[in-house]
């Protein structure tokens, strides 16, 4: 993750924090942006699963 999804600031600065973790087949990055203080999780999903309404 190179940039904050909130403000676009670089996450590769000294202060910002990016931590990878896995959830099933999904690759996740917890990102904390030192510029705007946003805490976010960016998911690189193995697939996109949608829902199907009753019909």
């Amino acid at each position, binding site marked *: 993750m190179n940039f904050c999804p909130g403000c676009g600031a670089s996450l590769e600065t*000294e*202060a*910002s*924090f*990016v*931590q*990878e*973790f*896995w*959830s099933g087949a999904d690759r996740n990055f*917890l990102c*904390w942006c*030192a510029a705007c203080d946003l*805490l976010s999780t960016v998911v690189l999903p193995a697939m996109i699963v949608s829902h199907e309404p009753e019909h």
Partner: protein
Amino acid sequence: MLSAEKNRRLTQVGPGTPMGELLRRYWWPVATHDMATRVPVKRRLLGEDLVLYRDGNGTVGLLAEQCPHRRAALWLGCTEQEGLRCGYHGWRFDESGQCLEQPGEPAESTFKDRIRATAYPVQELGGLVFAYLGPAPAPELPRYDLFVWEDAWRDIGHAELPCNFVQIMENSVDPYHVEWLHGRYGSFLRELDGRGGPLPVVTKKHVKVAFEVFEHGILKRRVLEGHTEEDEDWKVGHPLVFPHMLRVGAAGLATFQIRVPIDDENTWHVWYQTYRPEGGAPPQESVPVYEVPLRDEKGEYLRDYVDGQDIVAWITQGRVSDRTQEHLGKSDLGVILLRKLYAEQMDRVASGLDPLCTYREPHDVIDLPMEKDKFGSAVEFRQLWTRESSIRYSPIKDEIFELFGDPVPAWVS
């Protein structure tokens, strides 16, 4: 994984490093009360070599190890009525570092007035000596409940562990390890040794865990199999106290595990116990202090008890766990939250702000939340913890059993 650069930032505690600067904003236990005597002793904290002493007036001082004259170690020194005298040429210093005397210099010399040893403020509380290595003005020493209760007994176990303090702190936001390291592995060792069946309490499965950052650090909650959100494990929980402690216990038995960074690769671990049955404990003359051994007589790591299992898990992660090689999952979210909290607080300090858990106002006591009924039952938890934690090395173990009067559990073989 974490990048190598972020791992260094998270784990380096020396002067001038971001984590080192954050940690220097807190008071740290540097010794137990019995270490501060007329005999000066060497201590090491946050990568700095220090000398601790108590002079004839009872004043406790903490000076940098090297004498400002020609750099001999000040533990090679004599405590005088006032201050510490270097053993090499007799220069004498007070607890502020001021040089009081230079016996070899001409009588009318004012040279001593311009000489200062590096000195750090110290305070004694609850049987520990606390030191502050950061920039002035020092914040208040936080008077956490366990350090100040008047109607409790205490004892203090301690050991030097050959690993970085962050991996130990991460254990305190890792509830799942309890059912595996202590539940499964601990029971496996009991099977192998023919010591009976699995332990109660720690074998309970986790249904759900939660972490929230709050004024004291990170509050942990859990729901165990067969329990609900109405149980205190969830309703109350217990905290990781930022940046360096775990609060753990059940009614009457409340403890801190304090992780004191000696340097990047070593941690002084302090198990601080309070015993406070219903109605309070009778007065205690002084707080017993004991060392917690790491190895048995064959040189093998002791791991036939809960704290021993934790210690070996922490140490075997390596001197500084190589986080570029790890694989975190969803069950590690507590660990991730803690790392993020350290990162955020380092940034606060870098921007000139006080970090979390800085106290600037004088106060009587800081009460921390903790379950009374833990893992379902206070008595069952106490029965376990007084036997399966480092309390098993306490010189007052038998008196503690008597104080609570809990029955001997069936699983004791």
